[in-house]
């Protein structure tokens, strides 16, 4: 609660914690004029620990993937990427991931809105249930999806072994990301700001577009990035339902697994490196979009 009191006191909003999604919109109101080199010994230690941690967990393994990809030479790398089966798998994976992320941007924000702004019976239950796709081992999720959308579906549908299966599995595992990134930001927005806008004659739509959306956008963007990256790397939850048919329902992670099974590590790393590049491009694009929207509303 003391923290919350601190938020209204302007000096505390200075870029001590630039990690939070909310502060990048806050940065617009505050000058960013502190020299990058003036680190105190303690913050230097903090930075050191953070970098060490990040290197051990992320940078070194990523470099290992890229080194592995280059080991077999460029010809093996290009051969892997020119394989029509790999291209089909990459196209399916990235296409479905973009589609799912787009759906999540709307549905995730809407669910977060409902959870924060509305009161209804069963709200607490919904709060807990939202996270289940993250808690469930993906292979169990796969079994759930198979019995729900497979041939013995109680819904009377059969989407097994079609690309709809890939879409559904992605949708299932990525549901919580945008909900969970948008929710806390929505909680922080002071109702007074909206009331002020309304008293100045803004319509509901204008309030949403000019007041709420700019503060939500960074959160939506980071949730979308998480959701996209989770989707392109998904394996467990979809293998049972998708049927892994080459050229029609085979995803990139199954391709990678196939290369590994055939002892073709260079080719496996090549496909993985493409996924990494796609993820990077999407993250940067989302960041650019969110900065634009946050600035101009």
């Amino acid at each position: 609660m003391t923290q919350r009191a601190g938020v209204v006191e302007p000096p505390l909003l200075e870029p001590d914690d630039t990690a939070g999604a909310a502060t990048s919109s806050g940065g617009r109101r505050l000058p960013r004029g502190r020299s990058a080199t003036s680190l105190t010994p303690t913050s230097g230690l903090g930075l050191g620990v953070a970098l060490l941690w990040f290197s051990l967990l992320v940078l070194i393994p990523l470099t290992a993937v890229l080194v592995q990809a280059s080991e077999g030479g460029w010809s093996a790398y290009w051969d892997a990427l020119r394989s029509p089966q790999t291209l089909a798998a990459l196209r399916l994976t990235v296409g479905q991931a973009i589609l799912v992320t787009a759906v999540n941007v709307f549905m995730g924000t809407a669910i977060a809105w409902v959870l924060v702004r509305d009161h209804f019976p069963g709200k607490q239950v919904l709060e807990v249930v939202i996270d289940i796709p993250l808690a469930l081992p993906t292979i169990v999720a796969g079994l759930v999806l198979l019995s729900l959308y497979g041939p013995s579906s109680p819904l009377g549908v059969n989407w097994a072994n079609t690309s709809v299966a890939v879409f559904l599995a992605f949708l299932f595992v990525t549901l919580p990301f945008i909900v969970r990134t948008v929710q806390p930001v929505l909680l922080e927005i002071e109702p007074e700001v909206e009331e002020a806008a309304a008293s100045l004659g803004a319509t509901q739509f204008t309030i949403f577009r000019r007041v709420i959306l700019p503060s939500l956008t960074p959160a939506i963007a980071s949730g979308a990035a998480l959701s996209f990256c989770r989707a392109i790397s998904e394996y467990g939850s979809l293998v049972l339902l998708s049927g892994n048919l080459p050229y029609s329902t085979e995803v990139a992670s199954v391709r990678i697994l196939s290369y590994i099974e055939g002892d073709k590590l260079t080719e496996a790393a090549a496909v993985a490196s493409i996924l990494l590049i796609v993820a990077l491009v999407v993250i940067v694009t989302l960041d650019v979009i969110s900065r634009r929207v946050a600035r101009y509303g």
Partner: protein
Amino acid sequence: MSIRKLLRVRSGAALSAVVATVLLLTGCVGGAAKAPGDAGTTTLHLVGYAVPKEANNAIQKKFADTPEGKGVVWEESYGASGDQSRAVVNGLTADYVNFSLEGDVTRLVKAGLVDESWKSGPTKGIVSDSAVVIVVQKGNPLGIKDWSDLVKPGVKIVTPNPASSGSARWNILAAYQQVIANGGTEADAKEYLTKFFNHVAALPGSGRDATNTFLEGAANVLISYENEAILARQSGEDFDYILPDATLKIENPGAVLKNANPKAKAYLDFVLSQSGQEEFVQKGFRPVVADTPVGEVAGANDPAKPFPVPPRLFTISDLGGWDAVNTKFFDETTGLVPEIQKATGRSQ
């Protein structure tokens, strides 16, 4: 700088210090040595594929009653055959390995972990046999009797993915070679396999996933192994299986590593004794040692005569051995199976 801000910086620093200390401590503690085993016991490490776990455990129990097996303690690791083999290459401790495919042992030979002479024994390195079978729904509603019935209208086949599951390759090879065993040419065999792939509804990642997909009803035919079918029926699954007249003999290898404890070799010898083979038989595997007493095997089509010999049972050496087979059928760019999948996948 306000006082509150100073406080925040200080507490942030304290937190970093704590984190750093914890990191250092865990770094030191992590290296603590494991307690050595009790005197008089030997620890053997078994690394294997998941299916024969129960058979292995039963054999280990019997082995413990022999003079060589006295005091042997087991540390076991089970998983997908290819993954397990790669884990051993990457440093997983193993004395005895039991894989589903010869190639998974060959990988260890190439890495210098298993002696090149591992196939010189009377069973050529094989510890258990089985056969490729056709699993159908209870009562066989489609009236399937043989391979030729699989390419009739309405049949939907599920078989594990030959690209991501090495052991799934047995099934594809059986479907191909049976044409030749029945007097067809290589062109006929290719034509059959193309039709076969046109009827494939799903290629799940592993044998177990394929069984799940079949049981869910996504397909009406499952290509599987006799031992898997028997084991599943022993554990209560309700389906029928058909042993085609022409089919492929499945051969699962076992090997002892170069630097293994000598007791591991004694264990391999025991696995290949009649007493050891009996346990494989009970779990639905065909014995590799002639004259192994085959009693009743629950779950088999005819428990009293569980392993009828099909008239045209061929082996991987009839196809030229694994090296030739992997190049001819499964090579990414020139193999027959990727080529057929490209042709059939596009038309789906």
